[in-house]
């Protein structure tokens, strides 16, 4: 149906699709690259006809093992479905195929004074389909909302091979918000083949500020107070000293090397509001002992400040052989104490942890850097990771803010949800996928609903 050029069962090629950017490893029986929505639907039907589950995959930059093939599935890769189908500048809507890269969409509409607001740090590499799968976030989601707030409609191939359009361009479609259910379902409710996204007008005025601090506590307290004071920044990102220095060495973004923490704060909107909010942020930062507050003088300086933030992971890759990136959310009032706790946990496990994260919405990304070749290190990394997540939950937080549950956090779900809660989620999933054919063994732990036995794959740390 797809032709041999578009599908393979060669072991060497299959191995390339055994995992995503996370640590869990699985095994696919076949991989295919459909070039049209109809081919994608056909691939689902072929897999089902052969009694195989299927896993839809974008760029494989997911960090929770969402695209890791478990249960010997067929992997369906969307990277050839990469067309921007339609841009309606007047209605500010674009229809795209799922394999369109996030940043390519914003680039394609830039000349219209529009952009696609969700901007994950991986936006040069990840697909809009993958973003829909994980309900991806990014720095600018603080004011503008995560992926779900920007997806108006999704055409999906349901796990039985039927095609359905969920949501629509008209507001308040009657009936259940199936679109809302699908976004963030990590490939367990079917595969998106076409997506209608909202485009956002570029703000008339932007102020981007870099605030330096002599301690992580001062920076965190500035974040909490900024939110509490009623300022709603477009973005509010934090980096601690090790990250700041690594980034500075890597791209020379003009970050202060001697700071213990920096905040990258952006406010946007109309001129007077921007001026007022920028002044407020500066006053709060200074009241918390900011050692420097610098506002980007022009677009070039602004771009450089953001380049630093978005290169953080590339910078780490240069200095440590391995890293483990976590993702959890805590209430914004608890940042100071949770960051302190994370530092204590890292010290207790003799590990280096760095922090670069979406501070404005409390979305922590503790990054453990290590050398996995040293015996026993992986055990310590796992133990520290679990302790960090527990600390976040104890502070009233949740397991994941944007990377998803996948297989990584699947078995931690009972820490946040009771049996009845998990049962309800399992029922919702079953309504979409009664046979469990779409991305099996993900998101919900075994036994959420009289479940089948699920093996935890090698390499997961849970």
């Amino acid at each position, binding site marked *: 149906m797809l032709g041999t050029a578009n599908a393979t069962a060669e072991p060497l090629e299959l191995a390339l699709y055994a995992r995503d950017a996370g640590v869990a490893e699985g095994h696919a029986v076949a991989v295919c690259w459909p070039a049209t929505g109809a081919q994608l639907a056909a691939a689902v039907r072929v897999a089902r006809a052969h009694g195989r589950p299927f896993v839809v995959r974008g760029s494989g930059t997911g960090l929770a093992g969402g695209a890791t093939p478990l249960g010997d599935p067929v992997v369906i890769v969307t990277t050839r479905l990469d067309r921007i189908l339609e841009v309606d500048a007047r209605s500010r809507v674009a229809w795209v195929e799922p394999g369109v890269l996030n940043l390519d969409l914003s680039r394609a509409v830039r000349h219209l004074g529009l952009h696609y607001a969700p901007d994950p740090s991986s936006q040069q590499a990840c697909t809009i389909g993958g973003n829909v799968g994980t309900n991806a976030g990014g720095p600018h989601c603080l004011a503008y909302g995560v992926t*779900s707030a920007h997806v108006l409609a999704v055409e999906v191939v349901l796990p039985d091979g039927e095609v359905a359009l969920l949501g629509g361009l008209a507001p308040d479609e009657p*009936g259940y918000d199936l679109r809302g*259910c699908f976004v*963030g379902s990590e490939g367990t409710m079917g595969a998106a083949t076409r997506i209608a996204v909202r485009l956002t007008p570029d703000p008339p005025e932007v102020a981007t500020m870099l605030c330096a601090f002599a301690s992580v506590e001062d920076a965190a307290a500035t974040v909490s107070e900024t939110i509490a004071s009623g300022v709603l920044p477009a973005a509010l990102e934090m980096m601690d000293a090790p990250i700041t220095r690594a980034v500075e060495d890597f791209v020379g973004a003009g970050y202060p090397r001697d700071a213990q923490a920096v905040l990258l704060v952006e406010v946007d909107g*109309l*001129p007077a509001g921007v001026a007022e909010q920028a002044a407020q942020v500066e006053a709060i930062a200074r009241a918390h002992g900011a050692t420097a507050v610098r506002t980007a003088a022009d677009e070039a300086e602004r771009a450089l400040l953001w380049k630093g933030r978005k290169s953080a992971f590339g910078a780490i890759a240069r200095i440590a052989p391995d890293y483990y990136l976590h993702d959890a*959310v805590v209430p914004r009032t608890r940042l100071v104490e949770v960051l302190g706790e994370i530092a204590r946990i890292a010290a207790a496990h003799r590990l280096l942890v760095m922090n670069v994260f979406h501070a404005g919405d409390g979305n922590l990304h503790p990054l453990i850097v290590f050398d996995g070749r040293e015996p026993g290190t992986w055990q310590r990394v796992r133990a520290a990771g679990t302790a960090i997540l527990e600390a976040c939950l104890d502070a009233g937080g949740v397991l994941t803010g944007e990377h998803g549950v996948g297989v990584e956090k699947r078995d931690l779900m009972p820490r946040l949800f009771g049996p009845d809660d998990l049962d309800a989620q399992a029922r919702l999933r079953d309504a979409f996928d009664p046979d469990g054919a779409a991305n099996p063994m993900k998101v919900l732990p075994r036994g959420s609903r009289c479940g089948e036995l699920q093996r935890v794959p090698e390499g997961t740390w849970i």
Partner: protein
Amino acid sequence: MDLTPLQEAVASARTVVAVGARTQWRIGEPVAPDAAVVRAPAGVVRHEPADMTVTVGAGTPFGDLDRVLAAAGQECPLDPADPRATVGGVLAAGLSGLRRLRLGPLRDLVLEVRVVLGDGRVVKGGGPTVKNVTGYDLPRLYVGSLGTLGVLAQVTLRCRPRPTVSRWCRAPEPPPAGTRPSAVLWDGERVQVCFEGVRADVDAQCRGLPEIDGPVLPAGAHRGRISVPPGAVRPLAASLAALRGLRWCAQLGVGTVHVATDDVPALVAAREAAHAHGGWLLCEQGAPGLPAFGRPLPNAALMRRVKDAFDPDGKFAPGRLPLAGAPAAGARA
């Protein structure tokens, strides 16, 4: 918040309908008259001003919530037309307010839900933080579900800073690019526009425009709400303008068109126009006997499976949503 009385009331009844303030009771098909009436508890459980979140009983009147938030310089833009509407009722009806253009739809405001299911169990979905992708998105599923998937008992909502100035003006035409209106209403002749923010920005955007007390929406015995893709509003407007006795007002950039009339046939004609432009007309008031939705719901078979998954005995709001297939009494234990 003690949910046990609600749990017991739900568990012991054969069929159940959750009632708020009945301000949007006409939304959806009529519920079977013998369904037992239940009410969610009222009251603000927890407001975390520094985290911009609030947890309330779903029976809390919007006006009460708004007063609590206003005291802290915040708001939660549920924006029901009638402030007596309960939080749970607004969410279950799922109809966003006039400021959707700038503040987004209702469904983006809900962080966590606690719902009572048919056997009296309480199920939690979502989480208390402002960002969260842990598990499936039950909060969004419940927004607009019209009480057919269980009773919303308690919800956690996202708040935002209350604008220092909020002003409605009349204008000859929609505001130009570069402005940031919260709402633009157009009735074919006049524009009513809402600007919010700091005073200097609002003043600059309102320059030369006469201020008005607040928006005026079409009135009449029979009211409806049309939803079309935003780009279809102008062609639709041309059709509506030709209908005798129909008054209408569109939310530009959103695609919602409020219509009102004193004779039902005009509403029926407006519905036909909505269908011709790729949309819907939902009955909001009056129009006795007129079907609530006017067209089969999209993906009705999938919606039916969702309904059966959460309400296997067909206990909640029987009749409200016209879904394919028979009510699945006892379909799943």
